């Protein structure tokens, strides 16, 4: 789908105007991951590596089919494998493609102090601009999904770009293109939401997954990557998908009220000392260069 040139609607650590702010697109983009049809083939992992040009990295066997324990700065996209046994002994093997969720209210962008290091395009993609990244990793703190990963060699943070380069050129993200089963879909948020709801309804009515639902968490304003889950009440079973993700309250407090209070306090402080100078001026030397001191001391000592 062509989304035309990417307009920026939010910029991290930025004081001036934002070119795309208040402009509205005809649609937001969205990746739909139908977890109920994911077969854990890892084609998306390979496609992601190949498109982004990341080389071989060494992995070790860890009693799982999962490629590595967590995402890495050069591994944006990881299928998390989780075995789950129900109360009645039914085994399920949950495979969830984990990557940046591209939140509508991105905690990373909110937390980021570096001007332009994180941008949010008007189509909803949240993208890191490594040339502006200062490596402070506040985005790591701001993210409720534990996504951004730090490259300690270059001191830059990386994460899934939703292939903003491909999307900007009218292509789908690489993972979508590689997915063999059609578990991954890409389109407008409205369309994907509708597709996801249809699928969830089908699962509820036609299969034993009576609790199927769509994961599009409101706590971060919705996401531009949404899931269809077998059991919407237990997202944590899918490798720690938070049930109700929110930008941490500490980050909200820090970047919100506390910042304004701090600004005011500093301003008041400076104004206060200035006022003091105007009102009282500098202290004067009241003692002579030499002479009796004890008397003076006595005299000056109040009771």
């Amino acid at each position, binding site marked *: 789908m062509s989304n035309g040139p990417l307009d920026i609607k939010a910029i991290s650590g930025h004081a001036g105007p934002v070119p795309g702010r208040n402009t509205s697109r005809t649609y937001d983009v969205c990746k739909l991951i139908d977890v109920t049809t994911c077969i854990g083939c890892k084609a998306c992992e390979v496609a992601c590596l190949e498109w982004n040009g990341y080389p071989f990295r060494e992995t070790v066997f860890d009693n799982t089919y999962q490629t590595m324990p967590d995402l890495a700065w050069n591994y944006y996209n990881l299928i998390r494998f989780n075995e789950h046994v129900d109360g009645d002994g039914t085994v399920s093997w949950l495979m969830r493609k984990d990557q940046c969720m591209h939140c509508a209210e991105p905690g990373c962008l909110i937390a980021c102090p570096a001007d332009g*290091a994180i941008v949010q395009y008007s189509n909803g993609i949240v993208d890191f601009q490594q040339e502006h990244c200062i490596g*402070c990793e506040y985005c790591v*703190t701001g993210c409720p999904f534990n996504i951004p990963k730090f490259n300690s060699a270059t001191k830059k943070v990386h994460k899934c770009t939703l292939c903003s380069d491909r999307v900007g050129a009218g292509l789908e993200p690489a993972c979508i293109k590689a997915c063999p089963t059609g578990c991954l879909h890409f389109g407008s948020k409205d369309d994907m939401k509708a597709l996801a709801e249809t699928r969830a309804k089908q699962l509820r009515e036609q299969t034993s997954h009576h609790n199927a639902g769509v994961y599009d968490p409101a706590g971060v304003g919705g996401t531009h990557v949404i899931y269809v889950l077998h059991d919407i009440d237990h997202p944590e079973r899918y490798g720690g998908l938070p049930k109700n993700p929110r930008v941490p309250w*500490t980050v909200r407090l820090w970047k919100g009220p506390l910042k304004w209070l701090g600004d005011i306090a*500093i301003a008041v402080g400076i104004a206060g000392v200035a006022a003091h100078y105007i009102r*009282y001026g500098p202290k004067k030397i009241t003692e002579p260069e030499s002479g009796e001191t004890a008397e*003076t001391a006595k005299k000056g000592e109040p009771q």
Partner: protein
Amino acid sequence: MSAASNVAQSSPTGAIERYTFRERVMHWITGLTYLYCLATGLAFYSPHLYWLATMLGSGPTSRFWHPILGVVFLMGTLWMQNLWRRDMEIAETDRRWLDRVENYIANRDELLPLQERFNAGQKLFYWLMFYGALLLLLSGFFLWLPEYIPRQAAWIRGVMVLIHEIAALATIGAFIIHVYMGVFMVPGSMTAITTGFVSRAWARTHHRLWYMRATGDAPARK
């Protein structure tokens, strides 16, 4: 305990040494590193001040040096603690001084108790900066290398961010007053912390007890 507790030989002009060379080096290391951390920290704190980071090299440069100079600042603080701890102990007289601090603010110093080497305000500033520095470094450590914090403990970093910010704001408030007083409010202070010497009149005016003890004009304190 420290050399600064004694007064050096009077200089030809009659000035007396208030800060030794070591103390001055120590002060300026601490002060300048604080200043750097302040400037870069403010850049990270507010988009409106991000230009400070750009001016100081670049965002990444500032991010790189901020924690390192933060550690230097803390080391300076610890050195300071080593040199000045005894001078900074808060005594009964300080409490009385603080009760009448409005007189100090209003430049009615004659209504205040006589002061030792440092007055109660300076001591308070000192302790605020000392504990502030400890907090900044402790919280800063978590901000410095967050990738070593396990995911389950990610909330710690959020708390540390808040601590860092609040501690920084507290020190900033104190720092504003410190700079104002050093530069504008108490003439002679800058000379003291740069050359090490103050005039006898200055010493008698502001730190009479110290002056008396240092010059042997008066019995020892207490």
